[in-house]
């Protein structure tokens, strides 16, 4: 394997993690990872040396996710929010049992955020990107990223406090 391929394989755990923030359901997250890898391979001639492979691949994933969101809107399909119990029963592979109750509460709180805020939280808090890198992945001005992140975090603080999660 060359450097691009090795880099992509090394990124798989992070891609899956980002996909899980974007898509609460395990099967949907898996689809998203698969599509992202396929598209990254098909588009590798556009990858420029000196670009960060993680940011580049996250951008690919975000575009796929947005496009899917659009087609759902366009076709008028209604996506019903399943309750948490259903999701967990349906997703035994998600290794939930390894997560503490606090972590589960945090995950639910993050999934409950509006898309814009959730994407900002995913890139900065979960993936550890800088504000500038995250803004680039999301294709928004730096100030927009920052305000989405602030609002997302304010909601998280409130939700977690209400549930008695002290971290």
């Amino acid at each position: 394997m060359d450097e691009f391929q090795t880099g992509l394989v090394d990124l798989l755990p992070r891609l899956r993690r980002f996909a899980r923030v974007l898509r609460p359901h395990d099967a949907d997250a898996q689809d998203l990872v698969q599509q992202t890898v396929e598209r990254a391979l098909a588009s590798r001639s556009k990858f420029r040396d000196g670009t960060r492979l993680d940011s580049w691949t996250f951008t690919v994933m975000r575009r796929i996710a947005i496009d899917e969101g659009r087609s759902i809107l366009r076709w008028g399909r209604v996506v019903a929010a399943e309750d948490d119990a259903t999701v967990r029963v349906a997703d035994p592979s998600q290794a939930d049992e390894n997560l503490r109750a606090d972590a589960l509460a945090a995950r639910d709180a993050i999934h409950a955020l509006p898309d814009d805020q959730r994407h900002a939280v995913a890139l900065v808090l979960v993936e550890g990107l800088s504000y500038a890198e995250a803004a680039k992945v999301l294709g928004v001005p730096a100030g927009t990223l920052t305000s989405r992140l602030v609002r997302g975090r304010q909601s998280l603080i409130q939700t977690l406090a209400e549930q008695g999660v002290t971290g």
Partner: protein
Amino acid sequence: MTRLDDEILMRRVDGELGPTEAAAVDAAAEADPTIAARIAALRRTRTAAAGAFPAATDARDRDLARMIAASRRPSPFEGIGGALAEAFAPRRAVIWGGLATAAFVGGLALGPLLGGRSEGLRVEGGALADAGLVRVLDTRLNADGADGAGRSVGLTFRDGEGRWCRTFQAAEAGVAGLACRRDDGWAMQVLAPMAPSSGDIRMAGSDTPEAVLDVVDATIAGETLGAADEAQARNGGWRQRSAGVSRQP
């Protein structure tokens, strides 16, 4: 606690402040337990988020790794179109900037500047005169994606004078830009080449060249609109807010 306070504290927690500002925040936290508690709460969101989504290995990654290993390296010629386009259209390049407005007396068709692509954009005296794009800016929402000619809108926001501004992409012309509402039309603020568009990773309207984002950063007052507010602004006919009225939340 105001949002501005939270923003500075958040930047401190995330290591996004310079040393002087960071020291000032630390001193304030030392003097004020409320600030210290807020910093701790913000820091907890970081650990909570990281703990909620651990990077775990997954059995299915093996199949993906095999697929990646089996993929072919593209021939040097496959990427040449994109590479050439990139060479001649660097990401920060600007085809047309607002400052040049006064220089245009007559009309300007931008098509011929764009490497012979069939469809151009007409700009007259700084006002957008391309009927198709004007219609897209007037009526289309971000969630609609691209129209049949690849035209789509991206971000929508107000400038410092309360006028509506929208970023757009015109895929056939190969450009993206920013236009702001002026009188009954749209005044072009900046126009830049889209990143190479031959590739498969391009999705309609989902990214904006950095040169355009730079102008957005310099123009925006407040925040970009979400889907509901965007629809409301369109239905309201893109009216300018009168000066002196406080910003919407």
